[in-house]
């Protein structure tokens, strides 16, 4: 019930946003065009209805093209990249966290400091350096590790995915470290240690289960951050994804379609996760 309410409010929010350019240009003209704003939103909604009929003007062939079913291909490519990167980021962040937790206090602080400042690198720099590195490697050895832009039908995966995964990984790592260190101060860790369990066992079996839940609830912001990065990534690698499609067709209808293509999977992922974790948590705070 609560989830349904949240779902509806999120949809309303997205719809309200899609009409904002009208409101903004009205404000620039010096008047608040609220009526116009709501009329645009309802017009956009009406034009959305038979979803198959939405079409965009394609400059290359100078013809109106229906959006469906071509757009599904773009969406699936974008989502593949996004979720592969998210998976990789989560996996490596957790691995590194466990490894760092096994280190001593002093070394842990140093590792944290370095990664903390790495986090402030802009994604653009990372992508550009990755592309230059591939070219440099090609010039030196003649081996093309991965192509740096999509041309034609071949799709590239691992280079964009690793570029996209790097920064979220560092963010998640920081989040994990904070939670794990918080968890380390709990009584049950002390109890387990006094019972003679090894540090590795405690971290992997006891703390891990509790920390992951808390990390999951805080990771939403990281996913949001990844969406922005995905946009830049598609532009710079020329990936035929939904973001690039949106850039070429900046229309409210396409905007809504794009946002929904991310909103639905991410919302369901989080809802299922929330349901799953909350069900397990109920009654027993600590595992």
């Amino acid at each position: 019930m609560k989830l349904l309410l949240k779902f509806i409010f999120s949809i309303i929010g997205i719809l309200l946003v899609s009409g904002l350019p009208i409101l903004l240009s009205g404000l620039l003209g010096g008047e608040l065009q609220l009526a116009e704003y709501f009329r645009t939103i309802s017009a956009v909604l009406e034009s959305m209805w038979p979803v198959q009929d939405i079409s965009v003007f394609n400059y290359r062939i100078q013809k109106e093209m229906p959006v469906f079913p071509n757009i599904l291909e773009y969406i699936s490519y974008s989502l593949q990249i996004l979720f592969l990167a998210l998976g990789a980021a989560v996996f490596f962040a957790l691995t590194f966290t466990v490894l760092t937790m096994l280190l001593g206090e002093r070394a842990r602080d140093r590792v944290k400091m370095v990664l903390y400042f790495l986090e402030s690198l802009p994604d653009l720099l990372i992508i550009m350096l990755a592309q230059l590195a591939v070219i440099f490697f090609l010039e030196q050895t003649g081996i093309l590790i991965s192509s740096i832009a999509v041309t034609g039908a071949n799709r590239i995966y691992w280079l964009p995915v690793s570029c996209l995964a790097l920064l979220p990984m560092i963010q998640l790592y920081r989040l994990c470290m904070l939670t794990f260190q918080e968890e380390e101060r709990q009584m049950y860790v002390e109890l387990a240690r006094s019972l003679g369990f090894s540090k590795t066992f405690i971290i992997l079996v006891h703390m891990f289960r509790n920390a992951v839940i808390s990390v999951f609830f805080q990771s939403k912001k990281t996913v949001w951050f990844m969406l922005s990065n995905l946009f830049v990534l598609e532009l710079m690698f020329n990936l035929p994804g939904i973001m690039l499609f949106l850039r070429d067709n900046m229309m409210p209808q396409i905007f809504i379609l794009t946002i929904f293509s991310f909103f639905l999977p991410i919302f369901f992922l989080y809802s299922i996760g929330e349901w799953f974790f909350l069900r397990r948590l109920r009654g027993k705070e600590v595992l």
Partner: protein
Amino acid sequence: MWKQPYFVIGFAILAFFLIGSFAYEWFWGNVPRQVRFIMENGRAVEGAPISPQWAYPFGTDQFGFDMLGKLMIGAKYTIIAALAVAALRMLIAVPLGYMLGTYLQRHRSWVSGLADSLHYIPLTVFASFLLTPVLWMPEGGFTNTIWERIAIQVVVMALLTVPIVAVLVGSEAAILYQKEYIEASRILGASRLRIIRKHLIPHMREKLAVLYGQQVMETFIVLAHLGLLNLFLGGTKVSRDPMFGDPPMSISFEWSGLFGSSFRYLHGAPWMPLSPVLFIALSILAVSFMMEGYLRSKNPKVKKRSLSAKKEEVVNWNRSQLREKMVQVKDLHDM
């Protein structure tokens, strides 16, 4: 705060960019020096764009303008814009957040649901969706001045994530409201405004400072992303000449424009797009240094206390010492 090396380093970097930017314009005007080619022994060795070397640490662009000069002139626009966007956002969002936490407690759930929808819209896409009509030069030139456009852009970018920040502040405030001392002061008759002024603001000062730093960093990144989309700070000059159209150009030398207009040269002249991004990265790093320094100055003892707690002295007595002490204790009892 000023004794923390991290804070001082971060502050020095930002101050260097800002003061350097104004000084450069003061001394050399707002056109960087231009070199078309480098002569060596009476022969032209290298034409523009010139690669980085001692005289031109960041090379020159395709017209021979010194990159370092361009970057220094542009520094003030980008940095001040980023600081202003974040400041404006906090100024709007923090009172809203307090109001949400104080007066609208009951409505918090649906307001946060509405704000939550923004978490599915990539910030850059959102910004470009809103700013394209403002910044892209219309047919026949802009009708408003560059300062008007910069002001509009700053306001729009500030408003973008106001709901998210406000909800964040509101939920922090709501957590504080459940604390006992706030309840105590409410029972004693403190008004809501007084609670905000005397309890909430002092309590959240550090969190708000960190939030401000994060907003500045985020703004830098969004500005750079917008540059990639050819939406530059203060508007994009578009040449509509079908034959000899110039590429879209930034009107000022601000960094996102320097990056966005030269991104195509990444493989031919990598210093042209790389150096603005490097400067942006340095500024972001400076802000994060300042945040770290500030936090350390506010709670300096956290680390030391946790270390000292572990070093409890363990007294090792051998058997004879133990007996001696025991005898002493026994004597004390007997007396």
